[in-house]
């Protein structure tokens, strides 16, 4: 069975064809990232999640954060819930760990700016 996908590894957005029966062989990709994405998207889809958390005493009331690596797609809303329960105090440095091992994913939530 051939599945068609749009690669999201970069803004080019290659149109991929993945042969599920041939060990998830990927064609249509222009780089190695596309091959990796095609295989993973059909077996264990992951995403980088970006959002904000409350921060006090900074120039804005919200600090932008992200997952330090990709997390399973089905964990997104669970992690959003974790972020809603956080209140930080300024100062925070970019890359500072905000939550360790969020939702048991092995991935941290880190700040994406200093504030």
């Amino acid at each position, binding site marked *: 069975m051939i599945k068609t*996908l*749009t*690669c*999201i*590894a*970069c*803004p*080019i*957005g290659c*149109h991929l064809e993945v042969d599920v029966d041939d060990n998830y062989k990927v064609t249509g990709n222009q780089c190695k990232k596309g091959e990796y994405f095609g295989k993973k998207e059909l077996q264990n889809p992951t*995403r*980088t*999640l*970006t*959002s*904000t958390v*409350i921060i006090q005493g900074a*120039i*804005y*009331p*919200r600090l*932008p954060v*992200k997952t330090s690596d990709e997390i399973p*797609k089905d964990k*997104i*809303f669970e992690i*959003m819930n974790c972020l809603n329960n956080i209140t930080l105090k300024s100062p925070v440095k*970019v890359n500072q760990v905000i939550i360790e091992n969020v939702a048991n994913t092995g991935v941290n939530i880190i700040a*994406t*700016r*200093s504030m």
Partner: protein
Amino acid sequence: MREYEAIVIGGGSAGLAASVALHNEGVTDILLLERDQELGGILNQCIHNGFGLKVFKEELTGPEYAERYKDIFVEKNIPYKTNTMVISCDKNRIVEYANKDEGFVKIKGKAIIMTTGCYERNAGAIQLPGDRPSGIITAGTAQKYLNMDGYLVGKKVFILGSGDIGLIMARRMTLEGAEVLGVAEIMPYSGGLNRNIVQCLDDYNIPLYLNHTITSIKGKDHIEQIVLQEVKDFIPIKGTEKTFDVDTLLLSIGLIPEQSLAEKAGIILHSKTKGPMVDESYQTNIDGIFACGNALHVHDLVDFVSTESERAGKAAAQYIKRSDKNVGLSVNTIANKGISYIVPQTIHPKSIEQNLELFLRVDGVYQDMDLVIKSGEKEIKRYKKRHLAPAEMERIIIPKQWLVDINHDLEISLEAMK
């Protein structure tokens, strides 16, 4: 009146990159003026990732990308003022600005770089039909409210226009608990990048209605309902009406270079890009005034804003240091079949440094075409392109030696693949 070597108007990604480039070329008497309370521009509210793949070879969020450039800028001790609004700039390169500490100030620049970014088209720009209730807001404004102020503008949302900011906001508002009912796009293709259709709409089962537009808005004080209708050749088809109960309509219907200052200075704007006409050094028709970034033409990748602005900064530095302003013969770039626009609009072949940077957009979605560059009868280069779309800007670098002998306009077109 204080005279600076260079004045940079706007402290976003373009202004930061241009200033750093000026400084690297030995021009240190710079003043950068920024109206916001901090540097970084629109990147500060673009908390999603996808920035920096070309410049830093890694995937960053907007604030991370901004912070890296801010750090480089601050390390060089380049003078700048925030909370400072530039009121005017004239053809003699006299800039008037105002801020709380100094009041009203007049300064002059040997060179000026306009890096004022762009603004969002709004309801008036598309003559949005129906009532005029509250709850209709541009996607970028909603993005600032949500990502910087922590304020979600609505819970039942429809989005008109499939530009990238609209797609990004569809996901963002869904994550924060809003229900996004759909995205309407009047064209047969999306105005945003493919990857955003996948990871912002498909991931959350948000429908994209191509060839559709909103034909009515209902609501007394606040928006209550929209009517979506299919179109053919931009004309709504009777009987295809669908109604949606909403409390918010986001508009993601395009960006326009911010050029209110440029127009007053007598800078000639291009009909398609809506930004200034420039040459290969990003100089406008006004001597010593340069433009780059989204103030010149709207980019889809900040990485290209940075690289373009570095070139503009470097060219401005050379302009400041050069006594002989003769740049030689000039030819135009002509957007022929399949091409919507080309930046720069004019070229001085003898003045090109090492290579020429060209940006262009195509006028529709194409598969397997040749992008052909000609000057007179001479074919300069033919590039094979598997996929071309208006949402995806093309960047072409042409070595100087291919261009030194040309004396006809540079014409670019799409042809069937050879």
